[in-house]
C-alpha cells in the first residue's frame, strides 16, 4: 500500500468513527472478546437447544406418562417407570434388538473387511485405478429408496438376476431362491444390500488412512528387509487402524438406525424376522400412537447407543495416541 492510499484509509476510518453515534460506539467498544464470541455462537446454541436438547428433555418427560399423540384431549397420567418396565420386558422388543445387533455385527464385519481390502488394492495405484474407484463409489451415491426397489427386483425369484445367477452356480431352481420370503435368507438379503451400498464408504475412509502413511516408513522397512506380510501387519494395519475404527463407528451408528432398506425390502417380514429396532419404534410411535411407551423405548435406545459409542470413542482415542 502506498502512502497516499494509506492516508485515504485513515481518513475513511476517522470519518466512520465520527459518523458512528457515541452511545453505539461505546456499547460496541465495551464488549469483551468473550461477549462477542457469545453473540456469534448464540444463534447456533439456541437452534441446537430448540431442535436437539428440548425434544430430548420432552421425550424423557413423556416416557414417564401415558400420553398418546393422537388423543391430545385425553388426560395425561404419570405412570412412573411403567413404560420402561414394559419396554424392557417386552419379548418383541428384545427380538427387535437381537435382530438389530445381528445386522450391525454382520454389516460392519463385511463392510470393514471388504472395504479395507478394496482400499488396499486401490492404493496400489495400478493402471485405471481412478476409474475403478469411481465405479466402486456409485452404490453409495444412490438413494436408499432407489437401492431398495432395485434390489427387490434383483431378488425376485422369477425374473431377478440374483436368483438367476445363484441358480446358474448352484443348480437350485430359481423358484426356490426366495431371498425375501424365507426366514433364513431374508436377514442376509438385507445384509447383502447394505454391504453393497456402504462398503465404498468404508473403502474411502480406509483409503484416506492408507494414503496418510508416509512412504519413508515403508522405505525404512525395506532397508530392514521386512517382508511384505510383516510390513502389512506392523505398519499398514496399525497406522490405518484409527481410520478403520472411525469407519466402524460411523457405520455402526448408521446401521443401528437402519430403517429405509428394511422397510423397502421386507417390511419387517417374513413374520418379524427382519423387524429391527427402528421399525418397532416407528410402529409404536406413529402407528399405535403409544407416544409415552415409544419415548421410553427411544430413551433406552439412546442410552444404549450413547454408552456403547462412548466406550468405543475412548478406545479409538487410545489407539490414536499410540
Amino acid at each position, binding site marked *: 500500500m502506498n502512502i497516499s492510499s494509506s492516508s485515504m484509509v485513515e481518513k475513511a476510518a476517522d470519518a466512520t468513527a465520527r459518523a458512528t453515534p457515541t452511545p453505539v460506539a461505546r456499547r460496541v467498544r465495551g464488549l469483551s472478546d468473550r461477549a462477542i464470541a457469545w453473540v456469534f455462537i448464540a444463534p447456533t446454541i439456541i437452534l441446537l437447544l430448540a431442535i436437539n436438547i428440548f425434544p430430548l428433555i420432552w421425550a424423557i418427560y413423556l416416557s414417564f406418562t401415558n400420553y398418546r399423540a*393422537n388423543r391430545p384431549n385425553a388426560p395425561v397420567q404419570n405412570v412412573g417407570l411403567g413404560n420402561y418396565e414394559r419396554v424392557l420386558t417386552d419379548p418383541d422388543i428384545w427380538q427387535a434388538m437381537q435382530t438389530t445387533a445381528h445386522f450391525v455385527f454382520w454389516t460392519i464385519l463385511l463392510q470393514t473387511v471388504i472395504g479395507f481390502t478394496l482400499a488396499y488394492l486401490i492404493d496400489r495405484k495400478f493402471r485405471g485405478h481412478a476409474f475403478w474407484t469411481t465405479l466402486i463409489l456409485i452404490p453409495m451415491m444412490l438413494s436408499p429408496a432407489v437401492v431398495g426397489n432395485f434390489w427387490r427386483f434383483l431378488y425376485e425369484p422369477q425374473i431377478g438376476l440374483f436368483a438367476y445367477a445363484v441358480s446358474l452356480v448352484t443348480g437350485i431352481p430359481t423358484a426356490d431362491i426366495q431371498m425375501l420370503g424365507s426366514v433364513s435368507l431374508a436377514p442376509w438379503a438385507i445384509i447383502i444390500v447394505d454391504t453393497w451400498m456402504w462398503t465404498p464408504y468404508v473403502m474411502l475412509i480406509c483409503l484416506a488412512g492408507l494414503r496418510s502413511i508416509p512412504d519413508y516408513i515403508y522405505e525404512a522397512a525395506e532397508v530392514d528387509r521386512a517382508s511384505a506380510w510383516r510390513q502389512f501387519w506392523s505398519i499398514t494395519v496399525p497406522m490405518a487402524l484409527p481410520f478403520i475404527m472411525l469407519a466402524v463407528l460411523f457405520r455402526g451408528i448408521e446401521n443401528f438406525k437402519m430403517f429405509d432398506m428394511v422397510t423397502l425390502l421386507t417390511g*419387517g417380514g417374513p413374520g418379524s424376522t427382519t423387524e429391527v429396532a427402528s421399525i418397532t419404534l416407528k*410402529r409404536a410411535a406413529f402407528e399405535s400412537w403409544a407416544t409415552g411407551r415409544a419415548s421410553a423405548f427411544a430413551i433406552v435406545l439412546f442410552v444404549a447407543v450413547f454408552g456403547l459409542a462412548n466406550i468405543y470413542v475412548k478406545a479409538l482415542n487410545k489407539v490414536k495416541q499410540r
Partner: protein
Amino acid sequence: MQKKSKALLGLASAFVMSSALPNLAKADQLTLCWAAWDPANALVELSKDFTAKTGTEMKFEFVPWTSYADRFLNELNSHGKLCDLIIGDSQWIGGSAENGHYVKLNDFFDKEGIKMDDFVPATVVGYSEWPKNTPNYWALPAMGDVVGWTYRKDWFERPELQKEFKEKYGRELAAPKTYDELKQIAEFFQKREIDGKTVYGASIYTERGSEGITMGVTNVLYDWGFQYDNPDKPYEMEGFVNSPDAVKGLEFYKALYDCCTPPGSSNVYMVESADAFKSGQVAMQMNFAFTWPGLYKDEKVGGDKIGFFPNPAEKKHFAQLGGQGISVVSYSDKKDAALQYIKWFAQPDVQAKWWQLGGYSCLKSVVNAPDFASSQPYAQAFLDSMAIVKDFWAEPSYATLLQDMQKRVHNYVVAGNGTAQEALDGLVKDWTEVFKDDGKI
C-alpha cells in the same frame, strides 16, 4: 348525489368489499385429501361439475397407499388445515370421531334431507357410523369397495383344460363357489405350462408392512366362522378369534399360500397382486374391487379374457370390506363450503356419473337400478360382494390391533413359525392388552 355522499358511499362499499373478500376467498378453493389411485382420478373428473356449478375450485391432495394412513392421520392428529374434506379409511372412523377430527354430520343430513337409508346399509355401518350400529354419522359413504376375485376366463374356457379338470375333479372348470373349489382350481393351474409360460394358481395378500395380509386372511377367516368378539359381550375374544373354525380357516390360508401362489409372493398387496394377474402369471387373483375397471380395460388380460367373482363361501359367506366415506375435517376454515360439496356429491345424478367414471357408488338408487348389473362386466360381482361385507375393527386403537394381527398371521402363514392355534391365541393375548390399555375391559 352530492360529492360528499358519493365519497361516503364509495368508502362504505370499499369497507364492505374488503370485509367480504376473505369469506369469498375461503370458499374459492377446497382441498380434498385421498389416496392416489384410479378412483381418485375419476373423482377429479367428476368434481369439475361441482366447480362449474358453484365456482369453487377443487384442489386434490393424493398420497400413495403406502403412506396414505401415515400422512393423513398425522395431518388429523396435528389438527392440520390442509384438508377441508377427507376420504378416510373405514377403520379410521372410530378414532376420528372420538378425537374430534371429523364434523358430525347428523344435523347437516337432517337439514339437507340426506337420508342414510338411501345408501347400501353395509357401507353406512362401515364408512359412516361410530359407534357402530348407532345413528351417529361422521361421513357420507363415498367409495364402496370389497375384496373379491378376478380369474383368467380365457384359460378356464379352453376345451382341453376343461376336459382335464372334469376328469380330475368331476365338475366343470368355472368360477369357484367355495374355498375348497378355489383351492382345487389353484392347484390345477399351479406350475402349469400355458402358451409356453409357467403359470400359477392364485395371487393372495401377504404384505407385512401395512394391512395387506390381514385384509387377505380375514377375507377367508370370516367364511370359516371367525368373529372379532362375542356378539353378546363386546371385547370378549377367547373362543371367537381363536375358535376351532377360525384355526381351520387360518390353516387353509397358509395351505393356499404354500400350494398355489407364485414364487416370491411373501409381500403381496393390491399392486403386486394386480401385477401378477396383468403379467399373466396367475389364474386367479384376490383384490379389491377398485382394481376391476382398470384390469377390464387392460389390453393383455382384460375384455373377454377376464372374469369376476365374489369371495367364495365356506361355512359362512362374507367378504372383507374396503372403501371409504367422505368427511369434513373439523379443523378446516371452510366447513360450510365442504358441506356443500358433500351435499352435491350425495345427489343421485352425481352418484350415477361417479359409477360411470369408475368410482363405486354406495347409493341404492344407483346400485339397485335395473340396468346396473349389466352396466359393467364386474357390476354383478360387485353387487354380490357388497351384500356380504364385514369389516376389521374400527376402534380408535385399530392401528395397534392391525399391527398385532399383521405380525401374528405373517409369522404363521409366510414365515411358517408355530401353528395356527398359537397364532390366534397370541392374537387374543395382544388384543386383550390393547383393550385393557384403552380401558374397555
